[in-house]
């Protein structure tokens, strides 16, 4: 984007992210985030936004919340990050708390219980699809597939907890994948 847009204030960050959260009811948070931040408000160029997504996916934490943090901190540092994060979380989290209260109040009723018995079979299918969704990216790397297989067996068969698994397998895998210096100089 060629023209310079003034950096958004804390309030603008808060409301902008709230608009992202509200627009995405029904799905597509990432697409709405780009539409509002890049196209409507012009806070970032498309390229800056994609860089942000790369960072948000690389670091721990929910991707969409990390993206809001990235956007906020680019303009207003830590306090901007908190403003953007509050914007993206406030309404969905309030709604979730209301759903939670309804659940804990009603889940012992017979009708709700039967309904939920069906619903959880669908969410289990959704959970199962998560691994398959990213598996294709590794299909040509036998080392990666081996590493994935070992991580899976460690957790599912040997009941290793996630934290020790990552602390042991992580550094070993990083040593393997450490970029080698090219030996031939151009």
């Amino acid at each position, binding site marked *: 984007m060629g023209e310079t847009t003034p950096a958004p204030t804390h309030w603008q960050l808060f409301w902008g992210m709230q608009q992202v959260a509200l627009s995405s*009811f*029904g799905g597509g*948070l990432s697409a709405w985030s780009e539409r509002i931040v890049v196209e409507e408000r012009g806070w970032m160029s498309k390229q800056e936004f994609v860089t*942000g997504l790369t*960072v948000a996916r*690389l*670091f721990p*934490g929910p991707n*969409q*919340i990390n993206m809001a*943090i*990235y956007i906020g*901190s680019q303009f207003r540092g*830590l306090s901007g*990050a908190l403003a953007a994060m509050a914007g*993206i*979380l406030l*309404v*969905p*989290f309030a*709604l*979730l*708390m209301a759903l*939670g*209260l309804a*659940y*804990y109040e009603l*889940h*012992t009723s017979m009708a709700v*219980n*039967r*309904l939920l*018995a*069906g*619903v*959880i*079979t*669908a*969410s*289990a*299918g*959704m*959970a*199962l699809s*998560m*691994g*398959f969704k990213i598996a294709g990216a*590794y299909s040509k790397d036998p080392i990666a*597939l081996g*590493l994935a297989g070992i*991580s*899976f067996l460690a*957790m599912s068969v040997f009941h290793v907890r996630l934290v020790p*698994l*990552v602390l042991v397998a*992580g550094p070993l*895998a*990083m040593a393997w*994948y*450490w970029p080698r210096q090219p030996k031939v100089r151009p």
Partner: protein
Amino acid sequence: MSVMASAICQPVDLSDWQNLLAVIWDFLSLSLFSLGGGNTLLTEYHYLAVDKYCWLSSQQFAEIYAIAEGAPGPSSMIVGLLGMGAAYREGPLWGVLSGVMAEVAILLPSTLLMVAAALSWNRFKDSPLRLAFERAMGPITLGVLFAVGLKILRISDHDTPAYAVSLVVCVLMLRTKISPLWFMACAGLLGALGLVNR
């Protein structure tokens, strides 16, 4: 129908400050291990909420996961529902307070790291550390996500029709762009009609 957690499980009393701090510490220390968007932590959440602290039964955990998946907004807000479950028997207000504290605890460390990352990215983007980290964590995330999927499948499904529905939903999730809410609505109907049981 087994609504209550098993009798041998003794719930941690959250009115005791030391226990509350222990719970907050558990979520704080998991935060930086939420690889690949946070879903990798689901087996750890199950371990804490069902096995360690006995807030919920496995069945309730499966139900809460379904609610968090169906609700709009960013992923991994399930922690708010777990926190609510931890304190709900002390009243709805305590439930909400505990839910907010659990969510803050799981998000705080990763938020601070993300701010630091966003502000110093240009210095790190080409470092070998970043490249090695990115390549190494991908396959581990893949393995963990399969373990998470299998765990949720095991606690949700108990008979052949239930497994059949889950497999169909899994395939449709991968092959189509239909909103998952439709799958949940259809499966809920099957449950209400008594075609899928626990």
